């Protein structure tokens, strides 16, 4: 006999329930990592390298130590364990010794009584640098005579995907070169945490992160402590977007706390935050698309170059994504794709929302528009004609087995009503001109344009990685009925996984009162809050655990009935805290909970494969698709832009919380708009020139148009509730859609993002490349060095060598 959950429980799957952490957040009572405080706590501060590449000759700390407020100054020699860390490949020093490889690299950390004392004392540390020639251009990095960032060379990973017959002829060819700038995640909450030394010689770390367990995996070996002595607790996370995948202040705060035997808090300032986390990879992409006269794609060549900066971070996986997604969500029978990520002396790049899929979408969608124009086709029509579907084969040879409603998202998006025409909507308000109140014209130079783009993104980790998630569910009798508790290490970063977990448990157990255990390392790893994976992975584990709890409850019900000599007729169901057999009430759930029922379950996604020597393999778990249509207004004389409307349809599988899903789409679109129009870390010889919110602009409420979103629900088979992750597809497509609209309005090429006013009025020519960006002469998909692959890197981490 199985148990079925009736849909009578409020607040379950499919409802737009309120956030579990909403009330403290609106009251200002939610404790973010930067709000942490402990009795007797010290403040940590980091000394960073001013040079992109230099040898460290000597470090003199005595002057800093003379201040009585200073409790410790630590250098690389003070790191008791492993001296390096890294997500996939352990190549990044906790504190630099011998060499610094980017401007902003930590060299020393200091703890003092308060932040001001710490900051000033740090200025008294003297570092004697021997400045070395730096390589700060990704193309230059591949020249044989370029300075070497690491002894093994500057190639971080090279991928070559050969599909069908790359020599296949076509009727029409279009070619293009594209560049994307370095984008910052710019979470409003800074990097922050509090480390407290424990009596057992270990340390408790409260930190804002995306993955508690992978942090611990990296921290513990550096501290020379066993993992069980390094306990992590999730502190309030003020946004993440990839920037918190890598370790920032974690090891530093623990080192200082263990040395001083005092709690140590570290909080980055906004400026430091720009140096203290990885960024979105800048890219140079060349593509050549061939099609038949009727618009059917025949062949795609793509060459992608990305700047990984000084350390590996997650670059190997980012270039993996960029390469495997280079042809877009289209059927392409023949392709040759070469993707390379290089080391340079620029700040390290790694994860940011969209993870490699954003850059290539900007390129392949521009190509599709070029092709449509060359063939005299409608941009929507050419996309419909070539769209992927279930059963399609990707250039990696992977056959799409899951849902792929690409045509559906295109059609649904295109059907959303267009915004009103300018005269009507403007209503004489000059603030509605591009540039708002800053636009001093009378609207003479206004041009409206419309652009369309589609794109896709993988859900969960790819290339053979088993990023499983564990969840513990406990059902017990509370004073006012049954209570379920869900314990997961999944990081809530604002996206809503904690709310989703409580919804899944409500539905899974038919119990309305669900508590959330604070996330920590006392439960197994949930994997990272990234790759749009938590709803599927931690949600899947919660669903599995609930099923087991339910079975046990059901067994108890049957045992009691047997003991009482009663026969139960019909299926046993749970609804609103009651147990029913057929339609007959058997009792309240809590009557069967003299002993709580507890269960821990781990969810694994289906196995994938690494890429082989020809770039072939079943690499991605599942794919999510989105279409967007942007309408813009450009002031052709002033180079100012107003995005009038964004309309979008997204493939979500199943919406667990529709309001949250819409929120993810709107927020993701804002970040894509930022990359299209304003966001770029300005680098000059490896130095960040705009490390502040005064100079690095992110969209304000004046920049954002209404976003009209349609959710396409075609459940993914074999995953919990059929739900796909929803965080990234909108970011992937919106940059491409908005720039397409700008091209439509201006007739200009606009092949680099962010698009600047100069580009829109034709003051600066399109970026040019004499040909495809360079590609190293190395065979196959093997990351270089070989140990830098995903699995090897993780194994390396686990060995702690």
């Amino acid at each position, binding site marked *: 006999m199985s148990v079925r959950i009736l849909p009578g429980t409020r607040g379950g799957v499919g409802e737009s329930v309120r956030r579990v952490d909403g009330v403290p957040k609106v009251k*200002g009572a939610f404790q973010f990592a*930067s709000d942490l405080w402990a009795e007797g706590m010290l403040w940590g501060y980091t000394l960073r390298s001013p040079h992109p590449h230099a040898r460290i000759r000597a470090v003199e700390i005595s002057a800093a130590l003379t201040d009585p407020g200073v409790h410790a100054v630590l250098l690389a020699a003070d790191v008791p364990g492993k001296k390096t860390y890294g997500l996939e490949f352990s190549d990044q020093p906790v504190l630099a010794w011998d060499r610094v490889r980017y401007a902003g690299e930590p060299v020393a950390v200091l703890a003092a009584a308060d932040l001001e004392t710490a900051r000033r004392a740090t200025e008294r540390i003297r570092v004697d640098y021997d400045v070395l020639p730096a390589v700060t251009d990704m193309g230059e990095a591949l020249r044989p005579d370029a300075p070497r960032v690491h002894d093994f060379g500057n190639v971080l990973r090279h991928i070559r995907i050969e599909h069908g017959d790359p020599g296949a002829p076509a009727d029409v060819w279009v070619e293009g070169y594209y560049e994307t700038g370095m984008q910052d995640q710019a*979470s409003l909450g800074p990097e922050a945490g509090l480390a407290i030394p424990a009596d057992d010689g270990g340390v408790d770390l409260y930190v804002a992160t995306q993955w508690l367990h992978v942090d611990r995996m990296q921290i513990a070996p550096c501290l020379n402590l066993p993992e069980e002595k390094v306990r992590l607790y999730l502190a309030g996370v003020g946004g*993440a977007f990839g920037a918190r995948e890598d370790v920032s202040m974690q090891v530093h705060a623990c080192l200082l706390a263990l040395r001083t035997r005092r709690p140590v808090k570290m909080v980055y300032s906004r400026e430091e935050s720009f140096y203290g986390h990885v960024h979105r990879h800048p890219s140079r992409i060349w593509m050549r698309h061939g099609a038949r006269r009727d618009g059917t794609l025949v062949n795609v060549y793509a060459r992608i170059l990305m700047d990984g900066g000084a350390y590996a971070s997650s670059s190997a996986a980012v270039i993996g994504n960029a390469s495997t997604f280079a042809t877009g969500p289209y059927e392409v029978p023949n392709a040759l794709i070469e993707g390379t990520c290089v080391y340079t002396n620029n700040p390290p790049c790694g994860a940011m929302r969209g993870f490699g899929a954003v850059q290539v979408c900007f390129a392949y969608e521009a190509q599709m528009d070029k092709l449509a124009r060359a063939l005299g086709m409608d941009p929507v029509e050419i996309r419909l004609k070539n769209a992927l579907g279930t059963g399609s084969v990707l250039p990696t040879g992977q056959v799409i087995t899951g849902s792929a409603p690409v045509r559906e998202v295109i059609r649904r998006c295109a059907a959303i009503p267009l915004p009103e025409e300018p005269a009507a909507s403007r209503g004489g308000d000059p603030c509605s001109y591009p540039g708002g109140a800053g636009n001093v014209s009378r609207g003479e130079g206004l041009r409206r344009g419309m652009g369309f783009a589609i794109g896709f993104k993988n859900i969960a980790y790819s290339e053979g990685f088993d990023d499983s998630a564990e969840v513990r569910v406990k059902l017990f009798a509370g004073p006012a009925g049954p209570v379920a508790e869900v314990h997961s290490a999944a990081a809530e970063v604002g996206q809503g996984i904690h709310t989703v977990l409580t919804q899944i448990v409500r539905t899974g157990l038919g119990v309305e009162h669900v508590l959330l255990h604070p996330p920590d390392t006392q439960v197994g790893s949930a994997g990272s809050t990234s790759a749009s994976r938590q709803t599927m992975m931690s949600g899947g584990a919660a669903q599995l655990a609930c099923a087991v709890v339910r079975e046990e409850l059901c067994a108890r019900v049957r045992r009691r009935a047997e003991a009482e000599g009663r026969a139960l007729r019909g299926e046993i169901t749970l609804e609103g805290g009651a147990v029913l057999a057929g339609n007959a009430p058997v009792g309240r759930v809590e009557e069967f909970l003299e002993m709580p029922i507890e269960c821990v379950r781990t969810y694994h996604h289906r196995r994938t494969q690494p890429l082989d020597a020809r770039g072939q393999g079943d690499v991605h778990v599942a794919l999510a698709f989105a279409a967007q249509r942007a309408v813009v207004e450009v002031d052709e004389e002033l180079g100012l832009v107003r995005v009038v409307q964004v309309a979008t349809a997204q493939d979500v599988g199943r919406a667990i919380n529709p309001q949250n899903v819409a929120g993810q789409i709107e927020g993701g679109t804002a970040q894509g708009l930022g990359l299209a129009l304003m966001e770029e870390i300005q680098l000059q010889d490896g130095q960040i020139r705009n490390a502040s919110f005064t100079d690095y602009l992110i969209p304000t409420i004046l920049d954002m148009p209404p976003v009209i979103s349609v959710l396409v629900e075609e459940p993914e088979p074999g995953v919990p509730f059929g739900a796909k992750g929803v965080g990234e597809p909108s970011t992937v497509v919106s940059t491409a859609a908005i720039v397409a609209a700008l091209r439509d309005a201006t007739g200009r090429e606009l092949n680099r993002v962010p698009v600047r006013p100069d580009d829109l009025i034709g003051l600066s020519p399109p970026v040019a490349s004499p040909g495809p960006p360079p590609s190293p002469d190395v065979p196959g998909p093997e990351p270089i060095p070989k140990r830098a692959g995903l699995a090897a890197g993780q194994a390396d981490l686990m060995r702690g060598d």
Partner: protein
Amino acid sequence: MLVRANVNGEWRTADVWAGASLLHMLREHLGLPGSKNACEQGECGSCSIWLDGELVCACLVLAGQAHEREVRTVEALSARETLHPVQEAFLEVGAVQCGFCTPGLIVAVADLLMLDPSPDEPAVREALSGNLCRCTGYQKILDAVRLAAERMRAR
């Protein structure tokens, strides 16, 4: 230096460095971390508070400037158990994600609706243009302002 200010209705004294901001005093000396520190340069509005009834960025005001003045922070809006209608509206429409911008926005919206109970959309956008949010794309924040304004007018 010693600074004495009426904070959320209570006279409080803090011994701060002369260069410290009012935001620093609230967060680090008075145990009021509700006002956030996302830029400390006046760009993001996360630290929005009232000084003598005027909406200001607490990071741009020196602690000393609040001496003998009245300061109100987000913590004052729901001092009693009930939420302010703006807080209620933010929750209802889903205008909160990570929540780091939220306290500043709640204060800024409450201020706006005090001055103009029925702002039109351009006025709302203008009034909130100094409050950055990285998560929501602002659409649900606009919805929340609309809903809160309606409800507050109906009272």
